């Protein structure tokens, strides 16, 4: 088999083309917010959020609705509860995140085990994603949500940058820091929810963190960092999908693995360069 047909062959199947479309969209949105997640130390937040959507998702599935309808409110409720607990009790943010992470994830599992018998989607599907099962309407929803994220992101870009770098200076400059921070949390929620479909709850971080983290090693300014992040995420998605097709591997895990390998390669290359 020559190279061209090797490359083209998987995409005669509609489900693989749809998988690729969703993977490409998430590869663009994840590093956008991922760069902010990584540089502000919100990694645990992203992971916890991905797990905390379970009750909403389970409730929607049991009610026979699209999981989307439950996921996004769950993620937003989680983000706002964490902020609320930190402000009202004064405990550390990571402790508040840990509390809500465990409690909401547990609630989701309880809901599934009590009323989830007739739901066809398994817990494993939710945890590991069903990239190869996405439908045309999933793509449209993903695309819509991603475009909205992109617009909001572009509109608030300088404010996000200022607040993330120097929150006190930003407040002095007249930026409503709390509002921008909540906006960032909302953007992270939306992106996490969109990404779960591609790679599942457990592997969201593979798209959200690893490409952005690798990018911070490769570039010096925010925009190029986002650019590299998108490049790395695209490579990871495409390599992952091919690996999944040719070696019959689970797609979410393949993408996450590729993403981790890319980080390792970038880190090694950078070490080489800084030593030379």
């Amino acid at each position, binding site marked *: 088999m020559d190279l061209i047909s090797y490359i083209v062959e998987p995409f005669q199947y509609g489900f693989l083309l749809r998988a690729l479309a969703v993977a490409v969209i998430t590869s663009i949105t994840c590093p956008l917010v991922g*760069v902010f997640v990584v540089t502000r130390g919100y990694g645990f937040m992203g992971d916890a959020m991905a797990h905390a959507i379970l009750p909403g998702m389970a409730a929607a599935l049991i009610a026979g609705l699209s999981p989307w309808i439950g996921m996004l409110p769950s993620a937003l409720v989680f983000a706002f509860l964490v902020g609320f607990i930190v402000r009202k009790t004064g405990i550390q943010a990571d402790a508040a995140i840990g509390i809500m992470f465990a409690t909401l994830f547990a609630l989701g599992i309880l809901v599934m085990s009590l009323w989830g018998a007739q739901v066809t989607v398994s817990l494993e599907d939710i945890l590991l994603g069903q990239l190869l099962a996405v439908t045309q309407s999933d793509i449209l929803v993903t695309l819509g949500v991603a475009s909205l994220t992109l617009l909001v992101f572009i509109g*608030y*870009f*300088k404010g996000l940058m200022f607040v993330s*770098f*120097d929150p006190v200076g930003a407040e*002095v*400059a007249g*930026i409503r820091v709390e509002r921008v921070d909540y906006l960032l949390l909302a953007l992270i929620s939306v992106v996490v929810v969109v990404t779960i479909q591609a790679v599942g709850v457990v592997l969201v971080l593979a798209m959200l963190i690893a490409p952005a983290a690798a990018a911070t090693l490769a570039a010096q300014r*925010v925009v190029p960092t986002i650019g590299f992040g998108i490049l790395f995420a695209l490579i990871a998605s495409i390599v992952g999908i091919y690996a999944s097709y040719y070696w019959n591997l689970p797609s979410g895990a393949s993408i996450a693995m590729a993403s981790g390998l890319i980080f390792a390669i970038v880190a090694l290359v950078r070490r080489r360069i800084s030593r030379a």
Partner: protein
Amino acid sequence: MSQTPTYIHDSELEKQTAPLPAVDANCMCVTYGQDTVLRDVTFSVPSGAFVGIVGPNGAGKSTLLKTLVGIVELSSGSVNIYGSDPSQTRRMVGYVPQSDDVNWQFPVTVWDVVMMGRTPSLGAFRYESAADKNAVNDALHRVGLLHRKDDMIRSLSGGQRQRVFVARALAQDARVLLLDEAFSGVDVGSQYELMAVLRRLCEEGQTVLLTTHDLANMARQLDTVLCLNCHLCACGPPDEVFTPEVLEELYGPHVVAAESGYTI
């Protein structure tokens, strides 16, 4: 520096004929819930003065600076910047935050940071005008860091980082510069460099207020120091106000012994 701040002890008549002070605080009080952070603080800083604020942790130094930029509200009294309420003078006041409040891991260059002074919250693709670029260039030149404009902020030393933030305030066309903990995390050589830059800016007409813990070296080079411990214990030239009595009121008896060689 020949100018020394005018204080409210001056007659009302003198106040009316004098040019507007850069900062004019009158019986300023700030409370957070039950805690009184600032109590009846009254002082005036003339344009072009170089003023330090000293006092122990929790004395309200940062709070005082934050009232001047309008992000902390007074519970009573008043404060004016060139005769106007701080909420109206935001562009006029440049603020250099405490080093601990800045996320140094964030990927920005020196240029990006100074540009924040020009375009704090535009969208991603909003055009940065030639005037913005000139202002950034000029500000970096004035603090002596134009040659580092493409470097990442985190690759600079503590003193250089402070100067970048000073440049950001200049790019914003600020006339009053506020530096919170100006010299912490800055090595001794760079402290003097930063001091020289600030001194030159004062001579060019900027008014500088900074908070510092360094009574032994830095505070002594300022024109005026405000000694703050929730209330104003003293203010005036450092040689006059750093008396054993004032230092004891600020920090307790041990510091007095160490600072002035007095034994108690």
